[in-house]
């Protein structure tokens, strides 16, 4: 956001770039954040190795962008780095984006690392299939590792087509032995197992159509390749879980119908290749009460989650669950917002509560609170192993 010349360290580069071809080059933009994040776990850990009640992380996430003056070429480089005081697996480096985008008239080609988000629902992001989850970041499924790709897009009157060629598989991140929020035995991320003989080198493909018709937005895709979701199987001496990645075929559909203050949402997938072919869906509504007190808006959210998989597929916590939540936006100068929600399994009363709040302080600082609580899980149920890992997280980030 600041032109590079304001940053001494890069000023020389900018000057030499401008000297080289002043007419061709636009400004290099530098943005991103540096943050400090702390998590407090009030309860004693359940498993050996998880000592202590707190952890603190340093996050560095700069963003470098450059576009040619005509806008035909765009470059992006966004590394991500977390240093965690407790868990060596949570300390990690990733390249969220590193791409070259060429824009033709009604088409474009992106080559490099990128993130792709497709969904419409809030409680789960079922249809996202391009990127691997960066699970050590958060449980909410909204943090993704950068995926190497060639993405061809064409924009037509009848809609948008995206074609993806995805070389290079990214493995899911998991908490280590010292980390909270893990299974009774840790996942051995260094020993992945692949069904395909090509292993990590299997080249995946995907195609998606998206468009809108009046008040209806639609996305429809097909994916063939190494599924991002692993099956976790214990090793021979039961000291670790080995992630097994299978080759899958997956079709997905996302819909949103927007009418007055109502949003009606649907996401559904069908997956073949991980045990018995199964389908899963999330469907729900969002209704917003505008200016409920003063300028504040209150959004009410209800979603139903269903997953038809059986024991031959990776475990899911959301077989038949209901999500209810509300989102408060104060619409003030500080963009203060609060999201409170719960996902309940009515058959077992397992419940996952979540609170997210944030507020800007001044022009550059943002304080963010997140809290997650787990109740009602009994031994043998999906959430049991993390049922003592309720936590409160506070993050202070300086954006630049």
């Amino acid at each position, binding site marked *: 956001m600041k032109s590079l010349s304001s940053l001494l360290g890069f000023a020389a580069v900018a000057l030499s770039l401008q000297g080289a071809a002043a007419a061709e080059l636009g400004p290099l933009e530098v943005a991103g954040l540096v943050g400090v994040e702390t998590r407090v776990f009030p309860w004693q850990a359940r498993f050996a190795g998880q000592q202590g009640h707190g952890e603190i992380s340093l996050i560095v996430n700069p963003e470098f962008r450059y576009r040619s003056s005509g806008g035909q070429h765009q470059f992006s480089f966004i590394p991500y780095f977390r240093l965690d005081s407790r868990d060596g697996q949570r300390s990690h480096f990733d390249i969220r984006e590193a791409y070259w985008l060429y824009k033709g008239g009604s088409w474009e080609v992106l080559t490099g690392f990128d993130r792709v988000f497709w969904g419409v629902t809030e409680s789960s992001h079922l249809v996202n299939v391009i990127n691997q989850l960066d699970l050590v970041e958060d449980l909410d499924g909204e943090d993704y590792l950068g995926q190497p790709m060639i993405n061809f897009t064409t924009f037509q009157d009848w809609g948008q087509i995206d074609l993806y060629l995805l070389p290079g598989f990214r493995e899911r991140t998991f908490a280590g032995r010292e980390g909270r929020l893990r299974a009774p035995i840790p996942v051995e991320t260094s020993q992945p197992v692949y069904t395909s003989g090509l292993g990590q080198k299997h080249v995946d493909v995907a195609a998606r159509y998206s468009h809108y018709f009046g008040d209806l937005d639609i996305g429809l895709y097909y994916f063939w390749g190494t599924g991002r979701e692993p099956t976790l199987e214990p090793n021979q001496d039961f000291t670790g879980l080995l992630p097994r990645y299978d080759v899958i075929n997956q079709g997905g559909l996302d819909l949103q119908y927007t009418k007055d203050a109502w949003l009606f949402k649907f996401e559904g997938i069908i997956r073949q290749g991980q045990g018995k072919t199964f389908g899963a869906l999330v469907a729900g509504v969002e209704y917003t009460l505008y200016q409920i007190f003063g300028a504040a808006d209150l959004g009410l959210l209800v979603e139903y989650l269903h997953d038809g998989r059986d024991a031959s597929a990776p475990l899911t916590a959301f077989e038949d669950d209901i999500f209810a939540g509300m989102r408060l936006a104060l619409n003030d*100068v500080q963009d203060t917002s609060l999201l409170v929600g719960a996902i309940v399994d009515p058959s077992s009363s397992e419940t996952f509560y979540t609170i997210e709040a944030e507020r800007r302080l001044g*022009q550059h600082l943002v304080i963010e609170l997140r809290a997650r609580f787990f109740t009602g899980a009994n031994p043998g149920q999906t959430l049991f192993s993390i049922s003592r890992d309720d936590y409160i997280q506070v993050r202070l980030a300086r954006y630049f």
Partner: protein
Amino acid sequence: MKVLSLKLPSVWLLTALFGVVLTAGVYAGELEDKGFEIAARSDRSDRGFADSIVDMKMVLRNAHGQEATRSLVLKTLEIEDESVGDKSLIVFETPADIYGTALLSYAKILDPDDQWLYLPALKRVKRISSVNKSGPFVGSEFAFEDFTSQELNKFSYKYIGQEPCGDLVCDVIERTPLYENSGYTRQVAWIDQSVFQTRRVDFYDRRGALLKTLLFEDYREYDGGIWRAHTLKMKNHMTGKSTDLIYSDYAFKTGLKDSDFQKGILRRVR
């Protein structure tokens, strides 16, 4: 059309009232026709701008005078058909944490606009409801309806009179929103008689009280006789808060196309 049919009873009432005026020699609808003509002349004065790109700084001030700023880029694509609205793309640059947040709008005349919001942290495009016409736009004193394009046929008009405005003479017209969910019962606009640009608007809330005043300052003329104000000052009389919009130089006819205003491009706006 739905709105117009709802208005029918009041048209009958107006006709009855104007029966009195008729005897004084003014035919019913003359003031409305004149009001519409003035508004149309102003609206049509910037026909043919094709597209525009402008940087804007937004200065938000509370009753104690404390300031916060936001900056954004606004791109507009003119749709010449008056029964359809313009397309616009707003991309925020500051505060830094909302850098790259974008709002794509297809303005309609009486129906709610089509709007998509881009959230850069998730790289998520979200279709949003646009019924919230009267809600504040990003914490400012501008409501969404003040900010989205001021299409001619979104209002009915009535001529009130003429008044000096600064060094100029202005026609004063009253305009009544015809679209649903407006926060205003009426607006009073001052449009100058020299270059036909809006100089001031008073906004009256749902109770009929004066809510806000908007002043348009620093008009500059561009090629083709296109005029743009470069400072807009909105004052809220109820809260004492104010918001200024300060525009840089406009670029017109930059070659923006319909394909630059599709939801698929939102992921590439920064």
